[in-house]
């Protein structure tokens, strides 16, 4: 059900962002003040009740993650905010940082307190210069007000926040690569365990959370955790609150829209996104960033044995509420909740190739299956598009992708393999047409 809200990006249409006085006038920093008057554990419980599923892609529950942090002891704890936004199709965190930076800063203050940290690093992708500038300004303003520093809200619990920046590498969005990068190293993912909660930044207990997740924490403390969770249509799935939905590609009104969790793809694409450009048919939609396997509008929800799916079974996947577990159950992922829409003007084989060029370029090269596999897929796709590949090579492409999945240090490998397998399976005829007749039936273009 379409239930639009304006809690995360109230100042959506303002290019200058929101000033701290406006933010405070609307109740801003009240949530942090409230949190600082509560015991640490109670704050974590409030976040647990909010059922904030990680907005960075994996959908892990924020309260549960914070619950894994050890009791504060001799070693410092760190909160690290993932603002490396680089997943193709994703452009929501930038919106929060540019247009409502205080919502994030307030969440960082609450987060530090909740996990026993006194220092927070916001790792911002280097290219996002405006976002960095707005965050630094917001930090200075919060410091001036006494919300940050030695005695936030009069309590002797020092909190400092710094903006840190990368230098251009998609893989640094992966949380352990991000930590290596923060420590001044090459941004290569680490083997897990140990998990960041045990040994993260500077070998100390650390929680890495996405920008939107941390912003949602502010909202949860403001309204109360349970009330926040119940704003969602998927409260029953422990997938709470409101979130940002992005839509790009072949829609009339691409952009970021805020709504209760549980919006459907049809509502996102047709109601909010204004429908398909030139009113053409849609051939597919990548639901939440390029690593999520593509869905066809003809696919039907079929999840037997779970009562919660009864209202949706037999319907189009476009009418299934968008949630972490609902989308996992239909063989794709919700990811970052930013959809990429393809009309029939787009050639699915070229779309697949475009994405595999991305993965080949961005593999960090540590694991052989990922490094070699992504390069191999790119070369096979080049041959397919050139019309010089054989049917065996098409099958080989699926085999190579299957061999990457599950055999790597980080989830990048799965993120590359999943889309490749889905494209070949769901658009097999288009791939075969390239092999048999050089793509004579394909549009051979991506743009309209």
């Amino acid at each position: 059900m379409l239930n639009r809200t304006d809690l995360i990006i109230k100042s959506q249409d303002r290019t200058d962002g929101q000033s701290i006085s406006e933010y405070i006038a609307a109740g801003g920093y009240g949530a942090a003040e409230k949190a600082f008057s509560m015991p640490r554990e109670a704050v974590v419980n409030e976040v647990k009740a909010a059922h904030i599923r990680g907005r960075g892609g994996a959908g892990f529950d924020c309260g549960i993650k914070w619950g894994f942090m050890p009791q504060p002891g001799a070693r410092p704890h760190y909160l690290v905010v993932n603002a490396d936004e680089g997943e193709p199709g994703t452009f929501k965190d930038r919106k929060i940082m540019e247009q409502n930076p205080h919502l994030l800063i307030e969440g960082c203050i609450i987060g530090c307190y909740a996990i026993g940290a006194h220092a927070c690093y916001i790792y911002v992708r280097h290219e996002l210069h405006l976002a960095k500038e707005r965050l630094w300004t917001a930090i200075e303003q919060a410091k001036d007000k006494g919300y940050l520093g030695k005695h936030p809200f009069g309590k002797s619990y020092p909190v400092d926040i710094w903006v840190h920046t990368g230098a251009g590498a998609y893989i640094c969005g992966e949380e352990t690569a991000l930590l290596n990068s923060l420590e001044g190293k090459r941004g290569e993912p680490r083997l897990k365990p140990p998990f960041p909660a045990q040994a993260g930044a500077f070998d100390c207990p650390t929680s890495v959370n996405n920008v939107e997740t941390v912003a949602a924490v502010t909202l949860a403390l403001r309204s109360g955790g349970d009330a926040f969770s119940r704003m969602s249509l998927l409260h029953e799935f422990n997938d709470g609150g409101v979130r940002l939905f992005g839509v790009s590609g072949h829609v009339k009104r691409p952009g970021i829209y805020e709504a209760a969790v549980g919006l459907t793809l049809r509502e996102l694409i047709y109601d909010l996104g204004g429908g398909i450009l030139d009113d053409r048919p849609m051939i597919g939609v990548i639901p939440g960033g390029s690593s999520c396997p593509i869905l066809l509008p003809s696919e039907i929800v079929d999840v037997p044995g779970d009562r919660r799916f009864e209202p949706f079974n037999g319907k189009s996947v476009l009418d299934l509420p968008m949630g972490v577990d609902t989308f996992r159950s239909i063989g794709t992922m919700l990811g970052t909740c930013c959809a990429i829409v393809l009309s029939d003007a787009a050639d699915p084989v070229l779309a697949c190739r475009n994405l595999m060029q991305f993965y080949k370029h961005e593999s960090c090269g540590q694991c052989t299956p990922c490094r070699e596999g992504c390069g191999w897929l790119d070369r096979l796709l080049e041959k397919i598009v050139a019309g010089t590949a054989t049917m065996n090579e098409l099958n080989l492409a699926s085999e190579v992708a299957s061999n990457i999945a599950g055999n790597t240090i980080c989830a990048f490998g799965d993120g590359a393999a999943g889309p490749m397998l889905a494209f070949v399976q769901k658009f097999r005829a288009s791939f075969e047409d390239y092999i048999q007749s050089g793509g004579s039936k394909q549009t051979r273009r991506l743009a309209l």
Partner: protein
Amino acid sequence: MAFSLTSEQSAELEQIVARYPVKQAACIPLLHLCQRANGNWISDEVILFVAEQLNLSPSHVTGVVSFYSLLNEKPPGKHQVWVCRTLSCALRGSEAILKHCEKRLGIKSGETTSDGNVTLRTAECLASCGSAPMLQIDEKYHENLTVERLDTLLESLRSEPKGTP
């Protein structure tokens, strides 16, 4: 000639180092600072300077520089243009934008104009997919591009001495 920072830049260096529990963490921010101070690239002298400031081995710093695409191992043109090529932009015509840039500048992606004014490159998704097609010039995003607007932008690079720093 050995690389050095102005006193103002040195003060910034101090501030950066103070943010972290270990000096090494200042490596990337300091490389950005030095790159700006050194005509937008990391020379061997810069590597030695950063290594010495942070008590790191030059080979560590070299390894870091080679990992990140925005740390330039060679001097780029006065202006850097990145055209986003990834899927959301491609669906809205980034290929035509890139071709037009190549034609207007008379260079291929990855090259620098012979007068050293502009380096043209492609970028992977720049988190601006809802305003595709787009490109970045130096530190600024230009979104919802059309070929007409692109012409104006490229023209402005020619006449201006230097865009936003």
